[in-house]
């Protein structure tokens, strides 16, 4: 018994070490979305390209899509833009844009200059839909199934690695199942 007690500090140190080690390399800024498993929130917002058209949540029905939150004020969105073009053109992915807290003129100039990878673009200058989606920065990308239910949220830039490791398997699964 006495012998065992001598090893107690070692056991405690090892336990603390294991717990701390498990935390190494985890990015604390990536939060699980509260919306995973829930439908896209209701909204009624203008189309970026056609200011007279109203868009709502039925936009997400019928096809598995990526919902990409972007703005011209966001440098990281510029970084991922070429990859979004690649996804739309080479991989045939349906990407819906959410133009977040931006202004229409700047956004249209940006798309004109850099190309337009989006199937549809929701214009959300006040960030109301972004707020309902729990967006706390840009870029963020949601994977949404054909029924309009949020399946995954990626915070940060999309690149080839993210596509291959996370988004592609998920989309394949959604398209295979539906």
């Amino acid at each position, binding site marked *: 018994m006495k012998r065992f007690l001598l090893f107690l500090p070692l056991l405690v140190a090892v336990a603390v070490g294991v717990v701390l080690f498990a935390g190494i390399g985890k990015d*604390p800024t990536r*939060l699980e*979305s*509260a*919306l995973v498993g829930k439908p896209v929130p209701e909204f009624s917002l203008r189309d970026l390209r056609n200011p007279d058209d109203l868009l709502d949540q039925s936009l997400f029905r019928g096809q598995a899509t990526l919902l990409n939150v972007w703005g011209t004020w966001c440098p990281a969105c510029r970084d991922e833009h070429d990859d979004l073009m690649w996804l739309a053109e080479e991989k045939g992915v349906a990407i819906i844009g959410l133009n977040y807290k931006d202004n229409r003129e700047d956004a249209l100039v940006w798309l004109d200059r850099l190309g337009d990878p989006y199937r549809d673009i929701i214009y959300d200058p006040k960030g109301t839909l972004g*707020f309902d*989606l*729990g967006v*706390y920065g840009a870029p963020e990308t949601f994977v949404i199934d054909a029924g309009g239910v949020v399946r995954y949220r990626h915070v940060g830039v999309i690149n080839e690695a993210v596509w291959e490791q996370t988004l592609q398997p998920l989309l394949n699964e959604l398209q295979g199942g539906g």
Partner: protein
Amino acid sequence: MPRIVFIALVVLICGVATAEVADVYDFEDRAQEQRYQNLIAELRCPKCQNQNIADSNAPIAKDMRDEVYQMMKGGAGNQEIVESLVGRFGEFVRYKPEFDSRTFLLWATPVIAVFGGLLVVVVVIVRSRRAGAESPALSAEEKARVDRMLSEKEQGGSS
């Protein structure tokens, strides 16, 4: 002259102390404002992690304060306001998470630590008492020897 310096310092320091995030909101009374302040102090900003939305300057924190204010104006209760933000941003935004199976250890750790400590103290005391009763500091033989020595000293001292 020192007085002027002192006053200048006081003014400057007060300026710093009150330079917090200032949104202009109207409240019906002091109590409602207090309620608002308490709420935004216990909601956590998802962007500037480790700041509450009262202190954070992030745009998202501003949006969250607006939402809290608007819901409050609409007559929503504290619970309802917090739930609606948790529904969007996740449990992360609570600085005071609900007590449930996932947060059980979080809440229970202080209690467990206190009881663990008390247990150790009790065990140590009980053991030392038992040890004291079973093996007194002096054996019977030693005690007899000490008595003898003491009585000898007494006799020696009186003569």
